[in-house]
């Protein structure tokens, strides 16, 4: 009988398992060699540069065509206006005020959104009652809240912050709820078998598992917060308190198109900077989790 058996592999040879482990490790997804930083930055920057060039070229063409020439400045006039404004304290003061409101408003929105999201995802009756309300609030254009906020708080920063929170918190809450809902059932089973219960189940399993969805909620919440803030600064103009909205509003009153366009560029750039910070966080999580499709 032994003669029919295939020659045995001697598994007692030292290093047999180590060798196999090594072979297995070759099969493991290869380490993604991160390209040099300079190359990565260049790879990210040139498409943006190209897009800007295309926009400037189209803009210049429209300007050259003579359409509304009297009031519509070309890129040259606008950019030099922007350059001059950047030398003044007023624009920087306005940026500081607006940034401060954005940070405070968004931070409060994240806090409130996270608390509400955590409660709603945890407590079933609350889910039925508040869940659809949150989604409803999310679709409500937050600018509709301004009359309400102005009557309630007057022409104050609080009125603006109030609307930012109402605009951004539902997205943050919904992001967290989605993350908790979509925690993979298999991981939940594994966590329960490990003996994770209640708070520890939340801390070590459900919260980390919902991080990607939460960051997506933050990203969306930020977009809503930024829009609400701009709408608010145009509507709630506080005297002697320059903000980007106030500058825009002044430009409108004085029909200063070059300055108005320059301020819009500032707002656009600020929005893009914050958005890319969220994208960086999102990318870091994806890489950590091995969710990136590229190799």
């Amino acid at each position: 009988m032994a003669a029919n058996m295939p020659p045995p592999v001697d598994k007692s040879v030292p290093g047999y398992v180590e060798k196999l482990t090594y072979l297995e490790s070759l099969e493991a997804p290869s380490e993604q060699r991160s390209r040099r930083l300079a190359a990565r930055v260049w790879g990210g920057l040139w498409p943006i540069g190209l897009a800007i060039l295309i926009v400037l070229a189209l803009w210049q063409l429209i300007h050259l065509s003579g359409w509304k020439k009297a009031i519509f400045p070309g890129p040259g006039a606008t950019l030099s206006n922007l350059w001059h404004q950047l030398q003044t304290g007023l624009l920087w003061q306005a940026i500081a005020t607006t940034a401060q409101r954005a940070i405070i408003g968004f931070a409060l929105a994240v806090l409130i959104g996270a608390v509400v999201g955590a409660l709603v995802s945890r407590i079933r009756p609350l889910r039925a009652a508040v869940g659809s309300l949150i989604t409803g609030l999310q679709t409500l254009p937050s600018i509709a809240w301004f009359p309400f906020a102005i009557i309630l708080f007057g022409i104050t920063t609080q009125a603006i912050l109030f609307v930012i929170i109402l605009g951004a918190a539902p997205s943050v809450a919904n992001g967290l709820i989605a993350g908790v809902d979509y925690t993979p059932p298999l991981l939940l089973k594994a966590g329960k078998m490990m003996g994770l219960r209640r708070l520890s189940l939340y801390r070590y399993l459900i919260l980390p598992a919902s991080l990607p969805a939460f960051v997506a909620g933050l990203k969306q919440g930020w977009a809503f917060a930024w829009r609400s803030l701009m709408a608010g600064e145009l509507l709630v103009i506080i005297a002697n308190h320059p903000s980007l909205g106030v500058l825009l509003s002044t430009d409108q009153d004085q029909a200063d198109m070059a300055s108005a366009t320059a301020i819009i560029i500032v707002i656009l750039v600020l929005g893009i900077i914050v958005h890319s910070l969220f994208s960086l966080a999102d990318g870091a999580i994806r890489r950590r989790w091995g969710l990136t499709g590229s190799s």
Partner: protein
Amino acid sequence: MVRQVSSVTVADRRAAPPVGGQRDSVRLTGVSKVFGRGESAVRALDNVSLEVPPGEFTCLIGASGCGKSTLLSLVAGLEQPTSGEVSAGGGRVAFMFQEPALFPWLTAAGNVELALRARGLGKAERRQRTEELLDTVHLTGFGGKRPHQLSGGMRQRVALARALAQDADVLLMDEPFGALDAMTRDVLHDELDRICAGRQLTILFVTHNVREAVRLGDRVVVLSSRPGRVIAEFAVPIEGPRRIDSAPVAELAARVTDRLREEMGRDGS
């Protein structure tokens, strides 16, 4: 000790006095499990009785849809039987799934360590035990890798280390090597043998691979399909280290396969 509500059982198991391997058997008595209600109800298990004495390695085998996985979930306390009684013997229960089910935000070591943390071990002890466990599954030096950086076999070894970290008395394994290639599976069989030899582990191992069942088990239990019933049991009287391609294993596997075929023929499937 009969399970009542799943949310209390782990606490109960933890509170159970450790009586040095003198656990009760894992016992199912007249267990039935029906999913759904009315016309769409599916009877997954029908009047299953099974006893696995402490330290025994029992393999459950059957065609797909025979309720093998359901049976493990019942023993684990993840689901409740529709009727009958299930007892895990009062010890701690660990579960290994077909997928590694590792937490992607933690490293291999972090995954193992979390199981130790759930048991309430201190930091220094956790670190030391994690290292030992990774050594045990031959993953020395891979602790810092994240699950997606490991191969399928290595991930399943991390899952095994994590299950061992729970210091369980009962280890439930639901086709844990089903998704691996034959060579990797073969090595993991050897490792499982070696690991079991040093511990008083009661194992319930579900597979649809007859040779794997005979290779690993002290006993092979055959279940029928839809609903699952115990239709045959085979003791595995092969002493010493077995090889999946050895003649005694092949011969017994053939007998088990015949019994399975007979059952499938009866179904007409």
